[in-house]
């Protein structure tokens, strides 16, 4: 009975409200694609029952409309992390609780796009809004979005993950500027139960998987609300973001990287170790699945060493000095893609 009730209430979830700005950016992309004659016929790889957008939409909706709890494992490079997950939706809002089982104890609780992270060891909590969480349902609903232009989809044999039978879908990049993904989507609900990021020749760079998952679990929203609001004994930090534009900051890309569109640009106040306040600009690009951040700050010889590149799991990073400035580029993309960004970034004034 309880199970049926929670299932019914979960099914009443409404789409999260989305700000118009990102949607208009994707509209602009669609327009650009039309103008440039880049809109291609259905990808040759998509021979299965669903298009790539249908798959992504199904996975997205499943994560929003279910109550579940389980144990999640993340493996990147040689490190492995695990957490306990609770997820619930009451028809108006969805809530999620992530309790780390490895490393320093940390609890993350999310209500829609509002996120609080408790770090008991430091008796500190970080409260923030994450725009990226409310971004994509609208994008996927628009008739033409960028993803099918850069990725194809291939359906493989169903497999079992965490005790559940799952459809296996491979998202295959159409050029060398992005990685591929292999996704296990629970057969009945569409919930993503496992995800691999694939590099060259299909090498697995990083993976996320449930090892145990209880669907339609009796997760109590009031309990999660209580936990989220209980900041007693914690010092609560609210990171401040200031929206800006690359033009206003004096930056531009002299050449676009195929498929990647600018999504947002902001600075934030960060006190460095010497107590001096610096505000690096963060300019974010995305092709719909992969994202790249360009951080730009004044060059400081005491803090910025030689230029170098680095990799952990599927995340690449590289640093480069541009005149009096210091660039740190990061993203879940191949190293040459980041290099292309780094070489294209220049002062506009």
């Amino acid at each position: 009975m309880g199970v049926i009730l929670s299932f019914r209430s979960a099914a009443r979830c409404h789409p999260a409200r989305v700000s118009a700005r990102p949607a208009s950016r994707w509209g602009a992309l669609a327009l650009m694609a039309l103008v440039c004659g880049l809109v291609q016929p259905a990808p040759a790889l998509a021979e299965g029952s669903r298009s790539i957008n249908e798959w992504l939409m199904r996975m997205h909706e499943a994560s929003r409309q279910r109550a579940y709890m389980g144990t999640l494992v993340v493996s990147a490079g040689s490190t492995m992390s695990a957490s306990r997950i609770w997820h619930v939706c009451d028809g108006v809002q969805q809530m999620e609780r992530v309790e780390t089982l490895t490393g320093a104890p940390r609890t993350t609780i999310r209500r829609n796009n509002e996120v609080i992270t408790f770090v008991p060891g430091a008796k500190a909590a970080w409260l923030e809004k994450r725009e990226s969480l409310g971004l994509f349902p609208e994008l996927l609903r628009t008739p033409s979005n960028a993803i099918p232009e850069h990725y194809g989809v291939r359906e493989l044999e169903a497999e079992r993950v965490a005790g559940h039978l799952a459809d296996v879908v491979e998202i295959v990049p159409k050029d060398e500027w992005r990685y591929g993904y292999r996704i296990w989507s629970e057969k009945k609900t569409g919930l993503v139960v496992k995800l691999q990021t694939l590099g060259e020749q299909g090498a697995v760079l990083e993976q996320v998987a449930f090892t145990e998952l209880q669907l339609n679990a009796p997760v109590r929203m009031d309990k999660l609300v209580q936990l989220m609001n209980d900041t007693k004994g914690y010092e609560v930090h609210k990171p401040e973001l200031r929206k800006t534009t690359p033009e206003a900051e004096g930056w531009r890309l002299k050449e676009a990287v195929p498929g990647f569109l600018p999504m947002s640009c902001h600075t934030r106040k960060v006190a460095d170790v010497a107590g001096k306040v610096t505000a690096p600009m963060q300019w974010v690009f995305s092709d719909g699945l992969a994202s790249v951040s360009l951080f730009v700050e004044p060059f400081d010889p005491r803090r910025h060493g030689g230029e170098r590149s680095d990799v952990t799991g599927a995340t690449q990073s590289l640093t480069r000095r541009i005149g009096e400035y210091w660039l740190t580029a990061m993203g879940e993309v191949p190293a040459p893609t980041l290099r292309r960004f780094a070489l294209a970034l220049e002062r506009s004034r």
Partner: protein
Amino acid sequence: MNSKHVATAQDHSQTDSVLSALADGELPAAEFDAVFGASDAPDGLHLRWQSYQLVGEVLRGQAPAPGGRPASAFLAGVHARLQAESGVAPGPMTVTPPAPVEESLALPPSRGRAPAANDAVFRWQLVAGVASLAAVMAVSWSVLGSGAPGTAVPDQGAQLALVAAPAAPAVAPATVVVQTGQGAVIRDARLQELLAEHRQYGGMSALQMPAGFLRNATYDAAPQR
């Protein structure tokens, strides 16, 4: 006699499972009311809840809260001290613990001396004060060490040496060696900070909601800002 003994043991194990569910935040409201709302709530429930919290804190690797004595013990301590000192029952401030609590009070062995419950608290405050001072000094030391003007930018060799130095183990060093699938790499704290920001504000992906958010909340180092 024997059967009563068995019944009590059963009660205890039942109460324990209820307390365990409560500690995990998984006790349904109806059951909560049934157990804690009942007028015949099991004896010593309060104490057992306290010990649950203590065990939880120890398992999580946290030092037990210094003030973490049963509230009933604290009240009783105040009560006893007041009586001992003035010999007069306090007027409007009378603290009368409820009956089952009074019973649990008989537990402290040093009842004759009746030490103030907050004696221990004060000692702990001193200890905590010294500890936080030490922490501040450790942090300042590392800040002065790494951020002093005129310090040359260390090259990679110097950074490795820095890693090897056993200074201030409680404080994250400016540079750490990270084992990755591609072998050991040098990674600085600043890069880690930007990585956390990239994941928090740069996760612009259709996969963010189904997988990205959970992945980052599970994997990421705590934001160190």
